[in-house]
């Protein structure tokens, strides 16, 4: 084959040039073979890291559960490790309270922004607003935390005089603000990918713009929207800085948002930055709490994936 091609390529010489280059290409061929392995190596770094973290979490958690029974850990309602109470419920409760408040703030606002951007905004407006919205996602969370403590809390105190300096309400509220861009941006992507033909179809039947949005676009983008919400919730669960600064450090099993609560993440910060002795039960409890947190976010991510696959509309 090589010979025939070469003889045919006489007039143009391109084939000949390719052939000549092919002779020299042994190094190139080796690179060709090595590169995929190199790429695989890069890809496996993150996988291996995850596996490593998971392994450490598990091993240290097992160490913890040899001191404190797993039953006590998950059913106890008092968390005061310095006096030997290891019931994780107040931390989980604190995390959930913050997450619920954040979700209540972020989902309506994020979704409405997404609808506006995708369905109503002109190209020019969209091109201005979307980057601004995405800047919100780039603000360091410690700034958000400070903002919650020094701006939002005093503001809420004007309305709710009993509100403490540290409270779940402003922390949850600001976590909500932080995840709005995530909900808005991902939902907007989902709505944008609904083909225009569907909108035309509905408009052509005499539907109003609002009817098109709520009866065609939102149902068609449902899976993407739900996935964005679940991912945002998972982000809220894992949020650390804002709650550490603004929600306080009082493990408190309560649904009262005006009180100070401690989340799982905030406890980890507290214990990891404090004078916790290496090898102590408190030290190991970090891993048990971390493990619990990991399971929470993992489950949320799996739900997000499941929903986006299950309700995927084919258009």
């Amino acid at each position, binding site marked *: 084959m090589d010979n025939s091609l070469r003889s045919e390529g006489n007039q143009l010489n391109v084939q000949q040039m390719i052939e000549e280059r092919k002779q020299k290409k042994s190094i190139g061929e080796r690179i060709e073979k090595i590169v995929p392995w190199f790429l695989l190596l890069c890809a496996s770094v993150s996988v291996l890291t995850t596996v490593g973290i998971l392994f450490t979490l598990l091993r240290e958690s097992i160490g913890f559960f040899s001191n404190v029974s797993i039953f006590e850990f998950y059913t106890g309602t008092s968390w005061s490790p310095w006096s030997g109470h290891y019931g994780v419920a107040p931390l989980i409760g604190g995390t959930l309270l913050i997450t619920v408040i954040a979700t209540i703030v972020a989902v309506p606002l994020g979704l409405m922004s997404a609808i506006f951007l995708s369905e109503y905004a002109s190209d020019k407006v969209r091109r201005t607003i979307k980057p601004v919205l995405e800047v919100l996602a780039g603000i360091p969370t410690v700034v958000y935390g400070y903002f919650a403590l020094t701006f939002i809390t005093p503001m809420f105190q004007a309305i709710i005089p009993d509100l403490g300096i540290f409270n779940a309400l402003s922390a949850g509220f600001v976590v909500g603000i932080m995840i709005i861009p995530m909900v808005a941006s991902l939902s907007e992507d989902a709505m944008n990918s609904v083909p225009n033909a569907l909108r*035309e179809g509905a408009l052509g*039947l*005499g539907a109003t713009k609002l009817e098109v949005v709520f009866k065609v676009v939102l149902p068609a983008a449902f899976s993407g929207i739900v996935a964005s919400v679940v991912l945002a919730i998972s982000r809220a669960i894992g949020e650390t800085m804002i709650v550490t600064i603004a929600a306080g450090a009082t493990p408190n099993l309560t649904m009262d948002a005006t009180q100070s609560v401690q989340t799982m993440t905030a406890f980890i910060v507290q214990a990891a930055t404090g004078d916790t002795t290496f090898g102590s039960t408190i030290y190991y409890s970090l891993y048990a709490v971390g493990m619990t947190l990991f399971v929470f976010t993992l489950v949320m991510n799996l739900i997000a994936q499941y929903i986006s696959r299950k309700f995927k*509309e084919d258009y």
Partner: protein
Amino acid sequence: MSNVTKVQKEKNEGTAVPKVNKKETKKAENSVINVNDLNLWYGSNQALYEISMDIPEERVTAIIGPSGCGKSTFLKTLNRMVEMVPIVKTSGSINYRGNDIFSNKYKKEYLRTKVGMVFQKPNPFPKSVYDNVAYGPRVHGIKKKEVLDQIVEKSLKDAAIWDEVKDRLHENAYGLSGGQQQRVCIARALAVEPDVILMDEPTSALDPISTAKVEELVQELKEKYSIVIVTHNMQQAARISDKTAFFLSGELIEFAETDDLFQNPQDKRTEDYITGRFG
């Protein structure tokens, strides 16, 4: 003059020939949409120039012309769908049964229930066949299940697809073939009982058999509806339409009885186009 149907049609156009089918004569008299001096711009690009034509009632009007001649734009102007592009400007007037469709008093949503549309690519909603057809009636406030059931069945029957889908009404319309989807879309348009149906190259994405079915359906539908169909297929225009309009570069070059237009074009450009000299 050699063609028999053409002779008949000519007679129909003429005032009083008692022998011909009365219905045809009546049809020829009434128009459902009157377009006067319509100009349309996309931003600063003018896409339509001084279009004036009357769309006849209960007949099939075909619009032909090369790509980019403005035929789809014109069609979409008839139910104001063209305004989905925000930079569109128009001048001139379009009257639907005496109502100025550009008037603020005449709601475009209402217009679109009267002047329905079938699109180039089948665009069923990602819902069941039933929900697709029931969408229009539901949007306009019909909620009773028995009523919807009747509407859905009647529309699907009118769109000649009932037998193919009656056992899978509650399956996603995306599971149907392209041709079936397009007929479901036609059923969806019929479900709001429009007066006029605009079809924008409805068969261009379909295989020949599905195309034949849709063409046959168009013939049945003109008993009850006035149909305007844009097509890039001249044979199709000749097969299914009663009147044909030829558009070129945003202008209406010629508008005549289909047989006249194809056999005896009055304009040199029409002749060039239909004989395949360009386009």
